[in-house]
């Protein structure tokens, strides 16, 4: 069912008191869980839940020619789909605008943060480089698939290892893996999504809140020597944000990043044991 008007009104009334329909505070995230082991045939996988929103992510690796303007750097392609299993509103068919936008924002966050050391993905300059293929599937949608997707992608990258590469044949031996992890840096990018409902801001919206929101902003942020870097931003919806609201969002982004960074590191370590 789509959002009833009375629920939107309730969401607004509660926010005036600094409360949310599910009992959270405006800048409180839902519980996050990170698991792996979705597919042994992938170089890396993750299964991430934020509240009831769940995504499965797989990283596959292949070897290809580099782009002419980056001859000594690896490449990356990110795809995202809402599976029709995810909820009533998601029907089959090719990825729609929602999916494309999520894939692009996740991609930019990872790319611009410097989380992947692209030069270390070069096999032979100008001829052969590693290509990282990230596939994200939302299988249960209760809002904020954006942040779940980004987190899932990061987790799958952290858990991935190279496949075996046959240097003589210059081919990947699919299904055979090395122990070598991907060349990742400390600059872990996270995305944080805020919604504006009425004149109130919230983080990590659930489905009803997402449907109530008039404007949305996603910020991909990473950390370099305790300093936060914004790597990607995407505003959604028609309603504008004020400059003051953006300042508040940046402030809350910094806080949320620190809060979940440690938790994520711990959870990923726990998964890898």
């Amino acid at each position, binding site marked *: 069912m789509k959002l009833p008007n009375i629920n939107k009104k309730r969401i607004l009334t509660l926010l005036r008191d600094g409360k949310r329909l599910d009992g959270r505070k405006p800048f409180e995230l839902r519980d996050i869980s990170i698991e792996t082991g979705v597919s042994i*045939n992938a170089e890396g996988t993750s299964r991430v839940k934020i509240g009831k929103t769940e995504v499965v992510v797989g990283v*596959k690796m292949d070897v290809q020619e580099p782009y002419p303007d980056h001859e000594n750097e690896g490449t990356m392609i990110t795809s995202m789909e809402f599976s*029709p299993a995810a909820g*009533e509103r998601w029907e089959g068919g090719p990825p729609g605008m929602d999916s494309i936008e999520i894939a692009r924002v996740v991609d930019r966050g990872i790319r611009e943060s410097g989380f992947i050391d692209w030069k270390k993905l070069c096999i032979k300059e100008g001829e052969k480089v590693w290509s990282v293929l990230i596939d994200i599937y939302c*299988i249960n949608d209760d809002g904020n698939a954006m942040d779940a997707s980004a987190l899932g992608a990061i987790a799958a990258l952290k858990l991935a290892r190279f496949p075996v590469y046959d240097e003589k044949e210059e081919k990947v031996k699919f299904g055979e893996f090395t122990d070598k992890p991907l060349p990742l840096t400390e600059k872990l990018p996270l995305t944080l999504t805020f919604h504006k409902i009425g004149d109130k801001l919230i983080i990590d919206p659930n489905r009803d809140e997402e449907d109530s929101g008039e404007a949305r902003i996603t910020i991909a942020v990473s950390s370099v020597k305790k300093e936060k870097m914004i790597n990607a931003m995407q505003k959604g919806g028609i309603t504008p944000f004020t400059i003051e609201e953006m300042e508040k969002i940046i402030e809350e982004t910094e806080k949320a990043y620190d809060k979940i960074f440690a938790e994520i590191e711990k959870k990923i370590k726990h998964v890898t044991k």
Partner: protein
Amino acid sequence: MPYTKRPDKRKFDELRPIKAEVGVIPNADGSALFAFGETVAIAAVYGPKPLHPQHMQEPDRGIIRCNYNMLPFSVTERARPGPNRRSKEISMVAGNALASVVDLTRFPGTVIDVEIIILQANASTRCAGINAAAMALAHAGIVMKEMVSSVSIGKIDDKIVMDLIKEEEDHEEGEGATDIPFTMTSRTHQITHLQLDGRIQTHRFKEATEAAKEACKKILKYQERALKGEKIDETK
């Protein structure tokens, strides 16, 4: 080399370790996971619900719309996302395998959506998918005469075996490999889905059918236990 032992040391009439569970997708009206060893499928059911556009509606019955989706990272060499000829064919045969036990006359003009997702693949993906989908349909409270269970029967060299893995499908020596996925109803053991790929002597086909019947009986027990609340994981 003659085929005397299975690569994973199973008996010829032994299934891989099974995983079975219902309720894995909270938003769905019914959902389930079913795995034969390394082949893992989940299924979600939505409906019966209104069907749009109207010209797709059947005046005297509802329809089942099944979609089989093998995720790109479920296989060793990344599969291109989205539907292809193979996935469309499997979606159709799986939908028919399930529809034969479902009472579609109760809600004319409606649709029951069945989404099958293959998370990890090592052969028999359609069978794992159909098993999960049958559980998800039951879990969604759909009126069904009986359950269906699905298994791949193989003739590898001259042996009839249950629940094939990739390595067996690729067996070339001797008489080679024949893959025969079956789906059977739980009470009457009628065949609601049957495909075959390979070469098998006509006089040996009966053996394959008998093996399928035995395997489906075993699989039904897992589906039943999961629907009755057990979370089964023999892979641990």
